[in-house]
């Protein structure tokens, strides 16, 4: 039995010996290198680009600048030129690429490219974007091609607006005896994966296009490239080796397009585009910012009656995943509570910030920060314990979600149980505000979480299994190993099904879109569910084929056979069996006749009954199930200088079923660490002109070794019956309650309302001493 066991990840030895290969680790003497020239302005007209000097520089093979004939790109709205053309819309936007024999030569020549700009007024926040006098980031918004379910509003900066209209707000407010309303804001930040993005492209004489990329979406690259450039999809082959951290940031297709254009400019030779850290932080997509207003109404005893929510996401210069993120925010707009009357407008707006894409949690940590913080504000106004308010309103089977999905005991986890466990673990009853001395206090704060996925309704995942002569199996899946260990979990699921040792399963880590079946995108904590189901289906087929072949050898009907432990056995007479290794390639009779051939099988999976959201009311079913949980933070706070130390961080999550214990624990703790970084310290600092002042790991500082708190993580297991072994998504959930929990505990400790991020001591000091809110730090 391997399910639940802490099986080492399949690629573990490669990773500790330095032999694990990532995209930039592959290079050949034939490969040319591209260096991007990026915009120093957040919004400016490009008056001229002089490339003559650069073209003449040693080793330079081509210089590519934006062209009118390059396609506009973007997954939902085609709003982004691959290289800026006419104007730049964010600090860091590529305006040209110099391609040379070596990166050093390309860099030298890049300095010779002269770009003249004429600066334009800048949109520096979502509220500025919505003001009637705001400059337009996209003058031609109405003319862009787009997918069906996104609705840009021409002549504004609004890329999309998702509405939730549930129940009747008038009744909701009438029934509310207590109301609270709070504003929130935080700016864009970064994924900061340790591996910066890298892509190579090559155009072969026969028209095949070979792309290699550190991506979460190799199959999407294939699809989009064929769409953008009108290429035959079958001629595009994308490979993705191991990926050095992604967290949503490697979903978009960006550098791949530039690498392709660069290769085209040099007659198809292979070209590599490698992001240095500064580029990776601002040129490539970032983590979205948000401004929010949350108004809640409840009865005096804490029953939520109405929620009015206004979310404005800062998608930056381009919409990329911003519209989908705003949609996901609407889907989970309230936090895991049952509220009959909900009004929500979730907007994706353009600003002149670096453009945003998916980030671990996909809108949930952002929305929950606002919502769960408001829950604490309401609890305080009601004079109620924060746990009690949450327990009272916890979402349960029988309830409906904001998009009116009916919940049952399978599609939603057990939130009351998570809350009960968390309360016990945190020793909540011993108090949540303890004075240690004149200067220091200890405080506790909590947040609930929930999440479903909002992915394409027809996203699919496929798996191929083939036998080796020794009876071991090869597992091929298009899922990318981005660090989550999902491919190891797939091996566990297969081992369980085939009753075999997991060491006998060989998992191909690299993805190659030509030879491996598609896994839509490695996102949304859906890898195990989708690819796991495909594995199970393929394994069923393997078993059927094995029994069929063995029935001829053992001279009985296939139903009388059982597969396991490397054999096919006659059920009622286990002395009669044949080795899988002996029939995996067919069977040869004594006279030389042979039947069969190598046994292989495939499986595929697509979610059932997913729907788009109704444009007017938001009703619809975007995801298959909701993972729920409760999280907490305990800090020691210095009331004199407003510094604090996170002592303990807690997560109790209903994961349905733990498939790999240490793996799951690692996912949760890692996500918590990232959430604490985002909440406590990480944010881009913009000057008035929209320039990012800290695009470096020295000035934008993720958590370092030694800053980590004690993690206390527990799992609840309420199976989701459609998923392999009942497991729910888990990759993102550790992150999503951390910002709210930290804001709640710090508000509690400092005795003020902290409604902005990041929660640096300076912000606490400002609000505490000057009462300044809504002012950027």
């Amino acid at each position, binding site marked *: 039995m391997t399910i639940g066991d*802490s099986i*080492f*990840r399949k*690629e*573990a*030895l*490669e*990773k*500790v*010996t*330095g*032999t*694990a*290969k*990532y995209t*930039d*680790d592959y*290079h050949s003497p034939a490969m040319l290198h591209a260096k991007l020239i990026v915009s120093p302005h957040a919004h400016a007209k490009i008056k001229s680009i002089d490339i003559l000097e650069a073209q003449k520089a*040693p080793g330079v093979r081509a210089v590519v600048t934006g062209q009118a004939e390059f396609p506009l790109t973007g997954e939902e709205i085609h709003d982004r030129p691959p290289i800026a053309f006419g104007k730049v819309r964010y600090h860091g936007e590529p305006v040209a690429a110099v391609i040379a024999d070596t990166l*050093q030569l390309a860099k030298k020549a890049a300095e010779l490219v002269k770009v003249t700009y004429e600066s334009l007024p800048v949109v520096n926040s979502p509220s500025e974007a919505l003001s009637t006098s705001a400059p337009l980031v996209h003058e031609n918004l109405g003319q862009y091609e787009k997918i069906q379910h996104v609705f840009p509003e021409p002549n504004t900066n609004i890329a999309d607006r998702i509405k939730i209209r549930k129940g009747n707000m008038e009744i909701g407010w009438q029934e509310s005896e207590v109301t609270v309303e709070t504003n929130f804001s935080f700016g864009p930040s970064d*994924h*900061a*994966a*340790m*591996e*910066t993005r890298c892509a190579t492209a090559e155009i072969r004489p026969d028209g095949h296009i070979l792309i290699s990329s550190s991506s979460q979406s190799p199959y999407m690259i294939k699809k989009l490239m064929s769409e953008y450039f009108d290429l035959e999809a079958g001629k595009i082959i994308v490979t993705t080796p*191991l*990926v*050095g*951290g*992604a*967290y949503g940031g490697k979903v978009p297709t960006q550098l791949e397009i530039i690498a392709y254009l660069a290769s085209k400019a040099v007659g198809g030779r292979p070209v590599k585009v490698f992001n*240095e*850290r500064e580029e990776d932080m601002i040129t490539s997509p970032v983590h979205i910012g948000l401004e929010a207003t949350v108004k809640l109404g409840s009865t005096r005893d804490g029953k939520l009656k109405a929620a009015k929510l206004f979310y404005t996401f800062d998608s930056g210069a381009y919409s990329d995943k911003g519209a989908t993120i705003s949609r996901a925010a609407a889907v989970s707009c309230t936090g895991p509570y049952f509220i009959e009357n909900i009004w929500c407008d979730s907007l994706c707006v353009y600003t002149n910030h670096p453009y945003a894409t998916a980030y671990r949690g996909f809108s949930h940590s952002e929305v929950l920060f606002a919502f769960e913080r408001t829950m604490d504000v309401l609890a305080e106004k009601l004079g109620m314990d924060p746990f009690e308010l949450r327990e009272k309103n916890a979402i349960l089977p029988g309830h409906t979600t904001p998009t009116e999905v009916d919940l049952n005991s399978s599609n939603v986890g057990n939130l009351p149980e998570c809350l009960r466990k968390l309360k016990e673990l945190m020793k909540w009853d011993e108090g949540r505000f303890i004075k240690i001395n004149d200067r220091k206090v200890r405080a506790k704060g909590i947040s609930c979480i929930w999440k479903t996925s909002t992915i394409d309704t027809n996203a699919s995942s496929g798996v191929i299994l083939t036998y080796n002569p020794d009876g071991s199996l090869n597992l091929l899946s298009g899922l990318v190993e*981005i*660090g*989550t*260990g999902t491919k190891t979990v797939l091996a566990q699921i297969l081992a369980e099904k085939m009753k075999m040792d997991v060491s006998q399963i060989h998992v191909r880590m690299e993805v190659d879109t030509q030879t491996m079946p598609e896994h839509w995108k490695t996102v949304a904590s859906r890898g195990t569910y989708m690819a796991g189901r495909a594995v199970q289906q393929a394994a069923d087929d393997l078993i059927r084929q094995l029994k069929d072949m063995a029935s001829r050898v053992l001279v009985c009907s296939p139903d009388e056979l059982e597969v396991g432990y490397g054999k096919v056995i006659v059920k009622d007479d286990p002395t009669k069996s044949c080795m899988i290794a002996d029939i995996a390639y067919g069977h040869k009779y004594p006279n030389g006749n042979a039947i069969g051939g190598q046994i292989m099988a495939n499986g595929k999976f697509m979610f059932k009954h997913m729907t788009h959201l109704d444009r007017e009311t938001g009703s619809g079913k975007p995801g298959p199930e909701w993972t729920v949980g409760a999280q907490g933070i305990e800090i020691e706070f210095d009331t004199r200088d407003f510094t604090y130390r996170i002592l303990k961080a807690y997560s109790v999550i209903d994961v349905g079923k733990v498939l790999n214990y*240490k*793996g799951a*624990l*690692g*996912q949760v*703790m*890692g996500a*918590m*660490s*990232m959430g604490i970084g985002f909440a406590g310290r990480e944010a881009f600092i913009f000057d008035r002109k929209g320039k990012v002042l800290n695009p*470096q*790991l*020295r000035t934008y500082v*993720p*958590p*370092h*070794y*030694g*800053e*980590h708190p004690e*993690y206390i993580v527990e799992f609840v297991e309420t199976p989701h019956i459609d998923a392999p072994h009942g497991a729910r998504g888990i990759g993102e959930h550790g992150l999503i309650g951390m910002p709210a929990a930290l804001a709640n505990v710090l508000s509690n400790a400092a005795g003020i309302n902290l409604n902005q991020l990041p929660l640096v001591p300076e912000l606490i000091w400002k609000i505490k001493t000057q009462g300044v809110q809504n002012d950027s730090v």
Partner: protein
Amino acid sequence: MHTTEITLEVNGETRSVTVRNADTLLYVLRDKLGLTGAKPGCLNGDCGTCTIDVDGNPMKSCLMLAVEVQEAKITTVEGLKYSSLQTEFVDKFAFQCGYCTPGFIMNANALIKQYPHANDMLIKEWLESNICRCTGYKEIEEAVKSALATAQTVLRQQ
């Protein structure tokens, strides 16, 4: 472009290589010697993914020039063979994407060699120069502490 042929001692082997004076050690290891274990994370000294061992000290190879280390003994992660530290990293699940791992291992390996009795403070002082974005660091802490314990046992037995 000025280039020089230099000799480096890497992982116990003598390797000749032609470099520019401005080439960083990280670049030469990766692109000229095919040792891609050390990773580029920031090329600026801020992340530690490029950490290697130079004469027993953990060094950020993105901040060193190849021409500087002609007399030195260089060890990269490829030169460590089945050390207990590597085993502990696997055992304690001390990595996910693995991109920061060679750097952490090389840093901690030097720490264990120099200070087998390192306490929490010293461990933090050494390892805080490296960033891991995937784990919560607890797993790395456990792996390093287990390897320290093994090193201490070995010392006691000697």
